[in-house]
């Protein structure tokens, strides 16, 4: 008897990654001290971003001509900048731009890259060849140079910087998804789902996608770290967050002109970028080990 005639196609039990392996992966992640430290630091920065209006000691854009380039003191823990703004308050508020850029850019990359990679890997043939060559073309242009060019043509703003970073990082997700899908689509359970009459879109979304998410999560975490640096770089060049709104990159751009007179202007925003990027890299490395298929 034809099984497909008996069972509704969508009722076939898909061998999806179930709660068990994910919970085990989470436990393994939490056993890795560097990853836990990374998670804690990311959590701290998220708290800073959300609570910025309440915890920042001063208005981040308020200038004070009486407090220009003042060294760290009780009134201004991180000192003040070239127009008397409080560096600590600007670092706290700058967290928002960096985190937003990291998360939004990577979401753009995922939203574009995963469906395109899925189509390339699943459909194959001419579609795959076309997408692969297009991906090669994007990857041939260095990430930051492409982001600079896109931001330049779109116009300087935080939104455009996020779009530029997101689009520039998309090919990595296309390539990763495609490679994973090509590996998974020849598995017996995918063949079985197809043989039972599931339409291709359902096979792709319900049977293939859940089994390619682990490497995508790892890559997305590491990509957030890269996006935070990229946003800071674009802002440093004047192509990201526009003044007077605070951003760590633009703070460093100003600070480089006063290295000899006010080094504190450069130390704190740079340290904030370093810590946030390091934290995401630690979490990403931890996730890579925790989600290793040999351990799942």
């Amino acid at each position: 008897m034809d099984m497909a005639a008996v069972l509704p196609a969508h009722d076939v039990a898909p061998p999806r990654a179930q709660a068990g392996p994910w919970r085990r992966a989470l436990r393994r992640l939490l056993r890795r001290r560097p990853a836990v430290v990374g998670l804690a630091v990311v959590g701290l920065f998220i708290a800073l971003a959300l609570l910025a209006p309440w915890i920042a000691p001063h208005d981040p854009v308020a200038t004070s001509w009486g407090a220009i380039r003042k060294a760290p003191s009780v009134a201004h823990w991180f000192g003040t900048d070239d127009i008397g703004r409080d560096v600590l308050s600007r670092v706290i508020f700058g967290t928002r731009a960096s985190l937003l850029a990291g998360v939004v850019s990577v979401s753009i990359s995922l939203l574009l890259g995963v469906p395109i990679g899925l189509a390339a890997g699943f459909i194959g043939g001419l579609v795959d060849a076309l997408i692969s060559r297009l991906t090669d073309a994007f990857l041939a242009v260095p990430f930051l140079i492409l982001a600079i060019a896109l931001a330049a043509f779109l116009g300087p703003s935080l939104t455009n910087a996020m779009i530029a970073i997101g689009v520039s990082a998309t090919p990595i997700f296309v390539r990763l998804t495609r490679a994973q899908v090509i590996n998974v689509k020849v598995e017996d359970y995918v063949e079985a789902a197809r043989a039972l009459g599931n339409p291709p879109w359902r096979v792709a979304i319900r049977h293939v996608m859940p089994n390619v998410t682990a490497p995508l999560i790892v890559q997305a975490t590491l990509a957030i770290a890269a996006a935070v640096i990229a946003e800071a770089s674009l802002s440093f060049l004047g192509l990201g967050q526009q003044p007077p709104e605070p951003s760590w990159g633009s703070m460093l751009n100003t600070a480089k002109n006063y290295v000899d007179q006010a080094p504190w202007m450069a130390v704190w925003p740079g340290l904030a970028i370093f810590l946030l990027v390091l934290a995401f890299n630690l979490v990403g490395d931890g996730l890579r080990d925790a989600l290793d298929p040999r351990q799942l």
Partner: protein
Amino acid sequence: MGEYLVKRLAQMVPTLLFVSILIFGLQQLLPGDPAKILAGEEQDPSVIAHLRVKLHLDEPLPMRYAYWVGGVLKGDFGESVRTQQPVLELVLQKLPVTIQLGTMAFVIALLIGIPTGIVAAVERGTWWDSAANAVALWGISTPNFWLGILLILLFSVQLGWLPASGYVSPFEDLKANLASMIMPAFVLGNALAAVLMRHTRSAMLQVLSSDYVRTARAKGLSERAVVLKHALRNALTPVITLGALELGTLLSGAVLTEQVFTIPGFGKLIVDSVFNRDYAVVQGVVLVTATAYIVLSLLADVAYFIVNPRLQHG
């Protein structure tokens, strides 16, 4: 070998075609009339009309692309709106500075990345391994423009040993040239060293567990000879090849490093062009970079093919 080369060259053609479409497409992102935007603030009607004719703006998009790509194939990348110089000439003028910076950075990255990678692999799981991994994490997490500022603060402002910015041609004064380039090269090499360290560590771990290394040890060779003479030689091939593919990292980093240290190279050219709305130069720089990357990838692949006999017979 010949067949492989032809296949790889054939793959390059569609990639280059898409790269050209991508770069031409950038111009279409400009909001509004490109001629008006390119004409600058003065908005001289004669300049706008001239640009409209020159850029074939009244013609359909595919025709405009054909004109543009036709020019590029003849070496005509357009001209700078600001200096009226041909874009290719400008790029070729700035390129040697960035090549020197990139080469020095690559050497520094090799000098840091490979020894730390070897130590991490040989001393796997020990304090040395953790320290080497920490160096790598530092390298990939530090924004190079921040590192540049910190080094200026230490070596230029505090100690007064090195110039904070500026560039001297090596043909004018080699010593001054090296003094002005050593900090930027270190800053640029720092991130690459981390990548090379990770590649070296994983390649060495793989090689150290292979049969021929076990045989070398069984023969009674010293650990030093096993690691440096037998294992390293094979582990280095993929590392150098992968390292060559990090050209993109170097060029991206060069943009920021040249900005921090005011070095008149390729990276500074693209940033200055962005702010001068000199879009033809931006397009030219991106095109040259992408082409260089594609050619270098081909050379790296061919080199890997040549040194790896298994691929030649496979």
